[in-house]
């Protein structure tokens, strides 16, 4: 579904990512691991179009999307749930969800989509008029994922969904992720939490200083010494 081909990207012409190659097949759940500043967020933002590539290509469903705007990519179904949730704090849950489905493609099916999301997160459905800023961190994470689903995502990219959540909520969020995967959604899971990711993702890439240090199925990555070194920064 997604193919990253020799991608070099960064800010102000200074590369952060150097020659990244990666693939995600349809229906797969793939983990992207790495320590702080390894380039995970830069990579996910390159896929979203928030960071412009310096060279290389990104193929989505066989088409080169590396020149497309963030809007066009959302319309294609590449949807990011950003780190720190970034819900719109002064808007109600309902408005946040509506904004999630604001792109030209998803706009037509918003009522149906909203029902699905509420079915997935009944807790959100109970308080549709409450402002997003008043929610707890875990509830905001639900809202952020729900908002991403509203966009009719084909590829859902979750950036640090466990960040700052209580263990109970982390478990709940990951159950939801498994469920979405079981329903056939393609998921890219960006996480710092190594063991958690390895339990849920079938395949993983480990980033270290802007390069892929290790890759393979969860078991391989787990036993790869380069994974450990990438984490310990050796």
């Amino acid at each position, binding site marked *: 579904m997604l193919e990253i081909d020799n991608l070099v990207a960064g800010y102000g012409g200074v590369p952060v990512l150097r020659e990244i190659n990666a693939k995600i097949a349809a229906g797969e759940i793939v983990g992207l691991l790495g320590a702080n500043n390894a380039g995970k967020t830069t990579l996910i933002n390159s896929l979203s179009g928030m960071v412009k590539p310096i060279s290389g290509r990104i193929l989505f469903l066989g088409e080169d999307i590396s020149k497309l705007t963030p*809007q066009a990519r959302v319309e294609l179904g590449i949807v990011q749930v950003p780190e720190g949730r*970034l*819900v719109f*704090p*002064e808007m109600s849950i309902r408005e946040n969800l*509506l904004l999630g489905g*604001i792109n030209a493609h998803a706009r037509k099916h918003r009522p149906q989509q909203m029902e699905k999301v509420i079915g997935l997160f009944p807790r959100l459905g109970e308080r549709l008029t409450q402002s997003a800023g008043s929610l707890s961190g875990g509830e905001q994470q639900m809202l952020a994922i729900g908002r991403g689903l509203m966009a009719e995502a084909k590829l859902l990219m979750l950036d640090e969904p466990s960040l700052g959540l209580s263990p109970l909520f982390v478990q709940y969020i990951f159950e939801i992720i498994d469920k979405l995967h079981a329903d056939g959604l393609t998921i890219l899971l960006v996480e710092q939490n190594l063991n958690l990711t390895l339990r849920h993702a079938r395949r993983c890439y480990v980033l270290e200083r802007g390069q892929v240090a290790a890759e393979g199925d969860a078991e391989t990555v787990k036993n790869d010494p380069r994974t450990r070194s990438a984490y310990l920064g050796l």
Partner: protein
Amino acid sequence: MSELYQALAQGLLIGATYGLLALGMGLVYGVSGVVNFSHGDFISLGMFMCLALYSAFAMDPYVSIIITVPLMTAIGALVYIFLIRPMVGHQFLMVVQLTLGLSLVLQNGILMVFGGEPARTPSFVESKLIILGDTVLRLPHIIAFVVSFALAIGLYIMLRATDFGRSIRAVHQNAHAAALMGINVGRVQVLTFALGIGILALAAALLLPGTPIQPNMGLRYTVITLLVVVLGGMTNFVGIMLGGLIIGIAEAFGTIYLDGPIGLLLPYIIFVAIMLFRPKGLTWSSAR
């Protein structure tokens, strides 16, 4: 007592239009972080367009808006795209100087075309008075009040209940997240700025009947708008409308009750006094 009612009524009527002027500025500030120091000069541009249309076709200012509003909206969009957008992001404070420069261009462009003598644009309602007991109100003021409030309510509904309105608020609250939703942030900024200038064209027609206009009055409108916006907490919708009413009433009280400069200073004195006690303006919610 009748003087009191007179001052209150006059202040409320004019204050609603001040609130409307400031809403445009507040929206633009909320979405792009830009404060347009040529705001008032766009108001005079709108007024002089009405004057030109009257001189050429004897068009009433209230009718001219069908031409001035689309025209000024288009001008607003062009100004944002070609002048302000290149600044946003890297040379932020430069927008101040840029819009000050634009203010000189507009003001003196108008001066070169129309000359510096005070001019009036008559309207069919200009001299109509409405008398309620002891209070005498001018019909143009009442029209301005009603239209301004209707428009403010319309804007409020637009912001709450339409996708475009929600996009504006989303960009204001978190531009990065808004872009991730597939909102074209740049387009929202252009449209908001254009909308703000379009509103000014309408406000110009509302303020025009009975008021002599001069090319150099723009700065004073800019300052009044700034007072209202700051008083309203920059981006708080209700706060800005309230700020408009306060400044309008302060102005009316100043001119009716106090002689000379102190009267004219009253809005400023009230502004400084309020701001010293409520440094963030009239916002009461803890959120932005």
